[in-house]
């Protein structure tokens, strides 16, 4: 064993390929998050409306995405979209769609929870100065709800990023899939290379998620301190 395993990373274009894979991962996560968070806010607001049927439908939507594991969701869309609905999308678009819908489901619950916990007198004072429903949400309820639920939303973001690790299952060329290929291609020359390749992927995920969850935690702590006087 002449070659130290860590050099697998510097062999040829391996490192660049890994970062390329990471870029695919980040791109899918980012698009899914933008779409999902926006849709989630809309659904969350709708879930505070009095219409019972609407609320039921949205609740079922949430529960479906809550009950079915994300791996299974990916395969459901991966197989069923082309076969049943005749929609042929590349795998990374399927994944983006699944993550966006899943994010929207979770976000709708966060938003709804925040909206109903805004004190009633806030809603009433808003109405008392003549705001209509749209204005009430726009100027009073949503801003308060957002600051209330920012930590939960950031945590949702970190969850989505971690969940992108499942992309390889439907053959998206994400960082893990690239990693596997690098490992296989270099197995002869670097038998311990697998440790370093998966090691760097581990570090990549940590480097993205840790700052986010640290931020969320700090915000939560500050709020707890404020609440405790």
């Amino acid at each position: 064993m002449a070659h130290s395993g860590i050099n697998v990373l510097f062999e040829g274009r391996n490192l660049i390929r890994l970062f390329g894979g990471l870029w695919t991962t980040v791109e899918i996560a980012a698009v899914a998050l933008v779409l999902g968070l926006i849709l989630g806010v809309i659904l969350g607001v709708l879930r505070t409306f009095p219409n019972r049927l609407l609320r039921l439908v949205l609740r079922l939507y949430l529960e479906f995405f809550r009950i079915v594991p994300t791996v299974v969701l990916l395969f459901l869309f991966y197989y069923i979209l082309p076969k049943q609905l005749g929609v042929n999308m590349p795998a990374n678009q399927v994944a983006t769609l699944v993550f966006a819908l899943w994010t929207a489901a979770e976000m709708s619950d966060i938003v709804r929870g925040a909206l109903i916990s805004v004190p009633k007198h806030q809603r009433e004072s808003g109405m008392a100065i003549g705001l209509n429903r749209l204005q009430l949400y726009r100027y009073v309820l949503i801003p308060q709800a957002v600051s209330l639920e920012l930590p939960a939303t950031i945590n949702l973001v970190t969850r989505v990023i971690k969940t992108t690790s499942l992309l390889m299952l439907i053959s998206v060329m994400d960082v893990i899939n690239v990693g596997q290929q690098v490992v296989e291609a270099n197995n002869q020359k670097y038998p311990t290379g697998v440790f370093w390749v998966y090691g760097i992927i581990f570090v990549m995920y940590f480097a993205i998620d840790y700052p986010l969850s640290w931020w969320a935690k700090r915000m939560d702590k500050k709020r707890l301190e404020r609440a405790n006087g």
Partner: protein
Amino acid sequence: MSSWQIIQQSLPLFEKGFVLTLWLSFLGIIGSIIVGLICSLLKYFRVPVLSQIAAVYVEISRNTPLLVQLFFLYYAFPVFGFKLNAELCGIIGLIFLGGSYMAEGFNGGFDGVAKTQVETGKAIGLSRIQLARYVVFPQGFTLSVPALAANIIFLIKETSIFTVIAIPELTNTALDLIGMYYRSNEYLLVLVIGYAIILIPLSIILTLLEKRVRYGAFGN
């Protein structure tokens, strides 16, 4: 063959996968609760060195995906001579992940006990350990129940990721069958129903439990 026949023929295999999913979840959840409780207690009592180690573990575990953790255990460790079978890797991975989630759940509960409760406890002369035993833990456990319940559901769903190291649990069973017979509709349907059978009743039970403890312990 009709869809119904396809489903019927696959049921014995799914049953095995179902049982394995339940069993691995059970072990993983129990292990996670134990690891989480230990980490949380180390933090609460500020045990030197060990509490710092626990804190580092929690951050690493919480901020990396289970799939990568499993790859590490299953593919990377064997090159250094630690060869474990897939199921053991799965359980260890799930506990490694779940331990930090449970720790955070317990921490949240302990931190959530009102500061005034702690002060009144101090005011009657309770020591730090007595304060924990009679005031913080009983109330903190109650407060942590919703987070623990959510973690339980989460960990059961995470077992679906075991398919990447070929553990024949529910998801793996379905994907194998699809690979062999190309009947994705049927097998995916059974798969979703399989998870629904576990998770719907469980989440109802956990919600009831949450309501009960909330009603039982508070209102002061």
